[in-house]
């Protein structure tokens, strides 16, 4: 039933002379091009783009879309990514001309509604994080990490303290070490205990006056809340360092516990996770950051300020690290986050985390009999099961299980992360899934573990393609269509 012709690459579909877009005639007196542009700067020919009609284009991309799994179509328990439902009302509202059709350099008087919204969002994010000041500029979580680490550098430079190290647990997301490196820090890994908590002895051992920042994800990537977080923060602070909270897992603790209250000095949010911004096939996200008063002066400019009932962009921030992104930020994602928070309100936002944690624990209770869950019987918003037993017994890997799940209409959990658990499957159901979906998923997972290994090694069997040759892709990279 699939239309295989329409999904040929654009370049195969192209026919000389075909056109979709037609431009209006030029209504001003025109001049010869070479009068306007030095001949050397004029391209000999138009760019070598494919030539298609509008029906071709629509059919091509519409059919391509159906090759994706997505939250709108499938259960998508991709651990650490919080693939929750993306409200349609938010999409409608963000595309109002009064939101989408605004130029970033319009006079502030013509942007009062937008600035009011963004100012309120700053306030809400400060409150949720238990911190004091917020910048909405970073474009994604990793960008927020980097921004905060740059602020830490400026902060310590200001204190004339030569602190060169960033510490984080081995279970940290790859962006943590990468951000540390980009910010010019030396990155040091801290061991975790078997249950995924920070190994305090190792932390103590590695804390010294060269440590600028300790980055922690709490709840961590095993979905466990580190009970010793206060103590950890205490140690870091004693050593003169700052605590950074990777907020990717905030979906577990909204209205329940606040990073600022458990010792974080800086944090980022992932509104595309926690606050239902759609993931867009890879992005965009946003990475708003919240910090303590002592770090606030270093925030990137501009922030939104309120004077009486006027709102303005505040660029006058002498200690600011400067900019990390052009214009204001990923506003569209921020508007969605605002809509989301206004939909839930104080009581509702707590119910989000309650149900996210309830769903995760329920699914854990269904899954643990099928695949061991090393961390134990409890989790926050997600948990990590391991396929190492079934791997040992019948050679079926986490990847095999993941691929087979696709056949049954489930997106795979995150596999092989965190690296601290062998054959890991990181499962995050989110609060927007129903009990029936979780039951059916667990049932299917069990069924799969009963299936013959050969079948699983070759899975998936019902998807458009199966087990692409990644080695070949990397050996002779073909990253574009040959001209």
């Amino acid at each position, binding site marked *: 039933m699939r239309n295989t012709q329409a999904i040929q690459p654009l370049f195969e579909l192209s026919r000389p002379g075909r056109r979709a877009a037609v431009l209006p005639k030029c209504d001003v007196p025109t001049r010869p091009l070479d009068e306007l542009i030095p001949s050397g700067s004029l391209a000999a020919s138009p760019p070598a783009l494919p030539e298609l009609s509008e029906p071709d284009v629509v059919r091509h991309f519409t059919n391509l879309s159906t090759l994706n799994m997505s939250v709108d179509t499938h259960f998508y328990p991709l651990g650490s990514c919080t693939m929750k439902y993306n409200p349609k009302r938010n999409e409608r509202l963000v595309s109002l001309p009064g939101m989408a059709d605004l130029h970033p350099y319009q006079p502030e008087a013509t942007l009062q509604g937008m600035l009011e919204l963004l100012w309120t969002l700053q306030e809400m994010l400060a409150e949720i994080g238990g911190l004091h000041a917020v910048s909405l500029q970073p474009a994604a979580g990793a960008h927020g990490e980097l921004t905060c680490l740059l602020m830490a550098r400026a902060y310590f430079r200001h204190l004339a303290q030569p602190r060169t190290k960033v510490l984080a647990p081995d279970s940290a997301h790859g962006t943590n070490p990468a951000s540390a490196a980009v910010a010019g820090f030396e*990155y040091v890994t801290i061991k975790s205990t078997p249950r995924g908590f920070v190994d305090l002895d190792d932390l103590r051992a590695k804390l010294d006056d060269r440590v600028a920042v300790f980055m922690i994800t709490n709840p961590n990537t095993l979905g466990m809340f580190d009970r010793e977080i206060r103590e950890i923060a205490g140690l870091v602070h004693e050593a003169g360092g700052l605590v950074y909270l990777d907020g990717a897992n905030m979906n577990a603790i909204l209205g329940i516990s606040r990073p600022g209250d458990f010792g974080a000095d800086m944090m980022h949010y992932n509104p595309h996770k926690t606050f239902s911004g759609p993931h867009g096939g890879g992005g965009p996200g946003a990475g708003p950051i919240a910090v303590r008063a002592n770090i606030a002066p270093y925030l990137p400019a501009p922030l939104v300020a309120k004077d009486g009932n006027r709102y303005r962009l505040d660029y006058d921030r002498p200690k600011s690290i400067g900019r990390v992104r052009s214009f204001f930020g990923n506003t569209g994602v921020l508007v969605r986050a605002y809509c989301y928070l206004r939909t839930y309100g104080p009581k509702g936002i707590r119910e989000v985390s309650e149900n996210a944690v309830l769903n995760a624990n329920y699914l854990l209770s269904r899954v643990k009999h099928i695949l061991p869950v090393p961390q134990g019987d409890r989790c926050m918003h997600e948990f990590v099961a391991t396929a190492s037993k079934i791997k040992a017994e019948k050679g079926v890997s986490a990847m095999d299980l993941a691929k087979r799940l696709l056949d049954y209409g489930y997106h795979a959990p995150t596999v092989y992360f965190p690296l601290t658990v062998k054959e890991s499957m990181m499962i995050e159901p989110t609060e927007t899934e129903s009990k029936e979906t979780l039951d059916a998923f667990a049932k299917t997972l069990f069924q799969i573990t009963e299936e013959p290994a050969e079948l699983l090694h070759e899975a998936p069997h019902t998807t458009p393609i199966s087990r692409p040759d990644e080695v070949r892709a990397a050996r002779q990279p073909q990253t574009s269509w040959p001209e």
Partner: protein
Amino acid sequence: MPYLPNTSADQQAMLDAIGVTSIDELFEMVPADLRLNRPLALPPALTEFELTDHVGRLAAKNTSAGQRVCFLGGGSYDHFIPAAVDAIASRGEYYTSYTPYQAEASQGNLQVFFEYQTLITRLTGMDVSNASLYDGGSAAAEAVFMCLGATGRRGRVVTAASVHPEYRQILQTHLGNLGIELVTVPTPQGNLAPEDLVSAVNDQTACVLVQQPNFFGCLEEADSLARIAHQAGARFVVSVDPISLGLLTRPGDYGADIVVAEGQSLGNPMAFGGPYLGIIACREELVRRMPGRITGQTTDRHGRRCWVLTLQTREQHIRREKATSNICTNQGLYALRATIYLALMGPQGMREVAELCLQKSRYAQDKLASGGRLSRAFDRPTFKEFVVRDQEDRVEELLEEAGRHGFFAGIPLGRWYPELADSFLVTVTEKRTKQEIDALAASLV
């Protein structure tokens, strides 16, 4: 709650299955003294109708670009967005999916990214494009990081005052932090004079970054600048306006090593500055230093052509602190939009939209300069933007007055260029009509 399927009956059944008596019990992991013992101080919940009304009112407090005639640019442009772009990009399979880690469940996105990468290489004349970065500004920074690594030079990075001021601020944030000097060559004539560049580069210069057409709308002598950079052993990085490439020489043809661009103008709304699309493309030899995701073609178990994320050993989730960049989430949906836009435009469409911008903006220059009060600040060839000087040095008033006549007439340059406090930047896209331009000229006197 509209997005929470669990009924209290469901909750009870689930608690029983877990073997606890209350949801609170599940949170025991969180020490009592770390729990918030009050509701968050957030505004009250709104139903969909109330939210729609509320956000509608906020939107109404803004004046949208469409409510006035928009001559603003400076890196964000009022180009026409075909309806098909919105229609396709609003399909849930695109915007509610995530990074194509599971290739078998993501061939739609992967093929789109492969097509996007191809379109970008065709547009820029480069060998390799990634699958997107955040925006044009951070893309410029990533390009500079690539050059630092590739050349091993940590002495200086040279750029020009004619590069977007905010992009230069981003560079300064990073280079300042790393203790690398950012040399900004002044451009009093409106473009980077080759001889000035010669004296700015040295044997510790990692790269030269210029913008084409530059922030003032003027064309740089790109090929000479490239030669100078390369003679100094530095890499040559160009930030371009993708729309201009319908007409202008492709950076690959004048020696660019890395091309970056703000992709907003390719079918993406101005949206008060974001989300936008960071475009980056480079020469083959730099591919392993490329930040972000790259899609590659391969075959599957049955020999079928397909696409996967490739060269991932550059990336943070594999290489961690050794990664080429820390980027994870990118701007996939906007890469999709750009892909649809370019597929609709085709070579002719891109050529024509560029020519319309060029002709109309030239017409506007002459028209504005004909009044007496205003004059062109720079006597250089321009593409779709240009700088206008106000004899009477009352830019703010002038623009406010134009606003009252229904125009977003231009961007005052004083905030970035004290020496241009008497000037503003005017942008004319294909959407502007002769009538609108004439009316603008009439209002600016």
